[in-house]
């Protein structure tokens, strides 16, 4: 048993070390790399907390997409290092806040809430057998609907902020393109598998969409597709299709009494429909968050 405790201890220390290094280190490039390491360690932590869905999402979105966004942002910005002055004040403040939080949380009685049993009791009518997907798309589907709206707001904000950039296409690298030609079809297959597996095993729309977005990011980096200037109508329709489908299913139409009521007999089908729509649209949307920000290759423009 103590091997697991040692592993958890090392992982916890690693997490705090990577986070401190990323936030307080001098050089920005090292900070972003350490942040990606932090994301991967978080993935391990989620596996240890027996939360495979979050581990998938953390790896694909937390470390992957966020890492790609940060590395791309790093390319252009001047290497100004953070002002030393205020950084030493971070540690004392952090230690006191952490101590207060930890002291209060340690004293809590060890017991589990009523919801896990409620979920397993209601699982048969939810239309799926995997509890997390049941909660995400049926019991608390309303949160997911608003979360899709959050993603849309972010994309509109990104497009609104960088709208003057004309689409950028990176220099094509033949060797990398060969690798991309092998990887991308496999990623699409993996995304389809994650979408299908979501009903009965860890997986689901968001993880599948993240893998699709990763495929698009890979294609953009090897110069096979260009970044986004002003998205065409077709692209906008692709992005809006999933949320509109979700709204159509959620809205109290045709006899469905209330918002987001999925009748048990074909809840499974409805959830799969929603997830398929979301996978495609959020795949484009998450890719759009990266492609709209794509910059020309600094080496070419000699802006090193």
């Amino acid at each position, binding site marked *: 048993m103590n091997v697991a405790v040692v592993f958890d201890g090392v992982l916890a220390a690693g997490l705090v070390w990577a986070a401190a290094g990323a936030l307080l280190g001098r050089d920005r490039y090292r900070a972003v790399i350490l942040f990606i390491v932090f994301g991967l360690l978080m993935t391990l932590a989620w596996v240890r907390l027996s939360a495979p869905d979050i581990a998938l999402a953390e790896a694909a979105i937390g470390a992957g997409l966020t890492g790609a966004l940060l590395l791309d942002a790093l390319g252009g910005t001047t290497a100004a290092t953070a002002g030393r002055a205020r950084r030493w004040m971070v540690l004392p403040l952090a230690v006191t806040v952490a101590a207060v939080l930890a002291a209060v949380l340690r004293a809590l009685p060890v017991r589990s809430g009523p919801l896990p049993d409620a979920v397993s009791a209601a699982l048969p009518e939810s239309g799926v057998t995997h509890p997390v997907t049941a909660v995400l798309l049926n019991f608390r589907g309303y949160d997911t609907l608003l979360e899709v709206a959050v993603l849309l707001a972010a994309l509109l904000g990104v497009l609104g902020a960088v709208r003057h950039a004309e689409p950028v296409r990176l220099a094509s690298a033949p*060797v*990398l393109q060969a*690798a991309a030609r092998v990887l991308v079809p496999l990623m699409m297959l993996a995304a389809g598998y994650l979408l299908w597996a979501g009903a009965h095993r860890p997986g689901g729309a968001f993880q599948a969409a993240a893998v699709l977005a990763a495929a698009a990011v890979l294609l953009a980096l090897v110069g096979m597709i260009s970044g986004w200037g002003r998205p065409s109508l077709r692209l906008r329709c692709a992005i809006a299709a999933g949320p509109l489908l979700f709204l159509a299913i959620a809205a109290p139409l045709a006899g469905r009494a209330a918002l987001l009521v999925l009748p048990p007999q074909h809840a499974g089908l409805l959830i799969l429909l929603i997830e398929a729509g979301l996978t495609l649209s959020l795949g484009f949307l998450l890719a759009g968050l990266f492609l709209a920000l794509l910059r020309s290759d600094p080496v070419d423009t000699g802006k090193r």
Partner: protein
Amino acid sequence: MLEFASTALMLLGAGFFFAGTVGLLRFPDVYSRLHALTKADNLGVGCIALALALQADGLASALKLLLIWPLALLASAAVSYAIAERAHALGTPLGDAGADDPP
């Protein structure tokens, strides 16, 4: 028997990772470090994937585990090419032991 084989493979994999890391730390320049990383670590990944596949509960999960190895090979080959090509474009010198870069 299976138990013994997978632990042996696990140790072999760990050995390769160790060799790769030593290479990363000790080698003089970017290019040779890339060699150390891609060669040793990929073998390490292969061994550990094999070891886990032996202990996997079903054929499906064993095959999925084995799929990790070719993917890791493809990814590290592409990435190391990109790093080497970019390092060369930026003109990072070869290690002191190496001959001058051919014109």
